[in-house]
């Protein structure tokens, strides 16, 4: 790990004033940043420890939703009564991710900003366009079991590793950010980026900006939802494919459908056109299969991960079916029904 300066501000204004240099990093739970620093992937000149800022509360919003402070730990968020009762999709996704130790340390804001676990990104001995723009991509043509099947580019085929973010995409969360220049909100779909020719940018956060909160809208899909995560072992592993499915049914007909995929792209993957396809229809595997076909029409495997395309199709159909039956995937008993 490189040597760095360490600051521990107690106010938001002080924290923002310390982060004007692009080589400064905010430190919250540290579960990803410290690891990346050990690997020399991240070499910050300075760490601004934001753990003492007042960003640890969950508040009701006047619109009937919730505003989750960026420092709320993943474990606390997963267990908060307002989340388990009103947004069980989010709780389920959180509990599908990482381990209890990591969820105790990891924060809401930090989860959004965790970086890909692409082996080549982590290995500083290999070229990587995300780590070192213009150096090339060793993943393409390499070991690609965990890599993207949607939205990849010739420069980067990495996937976003978060489970929480897949649920937040389906719930249409809004990200609150602040910097010394002011504050703004970013729709969740616009927060993370596809790699294109700038894979070094994971998100649309500008230098110096700090995530302060994640806001959930009132519509919570507390009955018809499921988070289905498929991986190489049943716990404590990143998703090969995951699906956050949420439905609103009126008189047995789909009135609203939300679907987000994890493990398949550089960001949580949503396809609004595909979601619209199922509106006004009775829920069923045929209708859900057509949604999956639309989502995956542009999917492309890299060799090792070709299996993800049929796996994703089945996972989409199954998760939507679980949501329609109000029988969400359980994260302790792993049997898929």
């Amino acid at each position, binding site marked *: 790990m490189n*040597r760095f300066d*360490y600051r521990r501000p107690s106010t938001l204004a002080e924290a923002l004033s310390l982060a004007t240099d692009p080589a400064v990093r905010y*430190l919250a739970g540290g579960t990803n940043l*410290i*690891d990346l620093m050990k690997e020399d992937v991240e070499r910050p000149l300075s760490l601004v420890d934001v753990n003492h800022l007042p960003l640890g509360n969950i508040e009701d919003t006047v619109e009937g939703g919730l505003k989750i402070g960026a420092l709320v730990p993943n474990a606390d968020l997963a267990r908060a009564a307002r989340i388990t009762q009103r947004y069980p999709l989010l709780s389920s996704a959180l509990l599908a991710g990482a381990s*209890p*130790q990591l969820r*105790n340390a990891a924060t809401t804001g930090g989860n959004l900003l965790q970086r890909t676990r692409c082996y080549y990104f982590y290995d500083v001995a290999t070229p990587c366009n995300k780590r070192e723009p213009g150096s090339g991509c060793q993943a393409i043509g390499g070991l690609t079991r965990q890599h993207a099947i949607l939205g990849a580019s010739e420069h980067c085929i990495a996937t976003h590793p978060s489970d929480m973010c897949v649920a937040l995409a389906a719930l249409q969360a809004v990200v609150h950010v602040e910097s010394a220049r002011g504050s703004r909100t970013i729709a969740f779909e616009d927060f993370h980026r596809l790699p294109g020719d700038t894979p070094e940018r994971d998100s649309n956060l500008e230098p110096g900006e700090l995530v302060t909160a994640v806001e959930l809208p009132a519509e919570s899909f507390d009955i018809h939802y499921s988070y289905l995560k498929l991986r190489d072992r049943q716990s404590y592993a990143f998703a090969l494919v995951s699906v956050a499915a949420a439905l609103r049914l009126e008189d047995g007909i789909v009135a609203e459908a939300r679907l987000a995929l994890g493990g398949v792209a550089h960001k949580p993957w949503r396809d609004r056109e595909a979601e619209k396809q199922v509106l006004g229809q009775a829920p069923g595997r045929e209708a859900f299969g057509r949604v999956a076909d639309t989502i995956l029409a542009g999917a492309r495997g890299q060799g090792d991960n070709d299996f993800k395309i049929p796996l994703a199709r089945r996972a989409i159909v199954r998760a939507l079916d679980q949501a329609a039956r109000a029988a969400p995937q359980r*994260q302790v008993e792993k049997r898929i029904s």
Partner: protein
Amino acid sequence: MKQATSPAGVERQDACPTRLTINGEIVELAIPPWTSLLDLLRERLALTGTKKGCDHGQCGACTVLIDGRRINSCLKLAVTLDGTEITTIEGLAGVDGSLHPLQEAFIRHDGFQCGYCTPGQICSAQGLLNEAQATTRAEIREHMSGNICRCGAYPNIVDAIEDVIHKRNSDPRMPE
């Protein structure tokens, strides 16, 4: 050691005064900010019960409790823990040397083979007890998934934890 390029005109500090309570004892130290809690415990405080397995938060061997919550000590910078209470495997037994109920249960159920992962398993199990989210075997297995045992002692580890949960005799000395 000083870097001329520190941002915002700030001169880098090579050690930060930090106050920790470790296994009930107050410790005041000047700690370089790049020192992990794991390295502080093992290399400076000679508390080598906490093990370094992967050093990347993937194995759980370094699990300790911070204010009663289990975390991977390899992924925490020690300076960020100023003012907290840390409990390691050395802090679980009584001052008279009597074993913690989890330690007794691991022995009774033969919950280890080589023993390297055991301090992390036991600290993690105490964190599981504090969280009070797991009672069934399936829940214990899922909630212990952050601790890898390469000897494969999992069935006996689950037996030991289940035993302690059922007896509800977790040590009152442990922080909730």
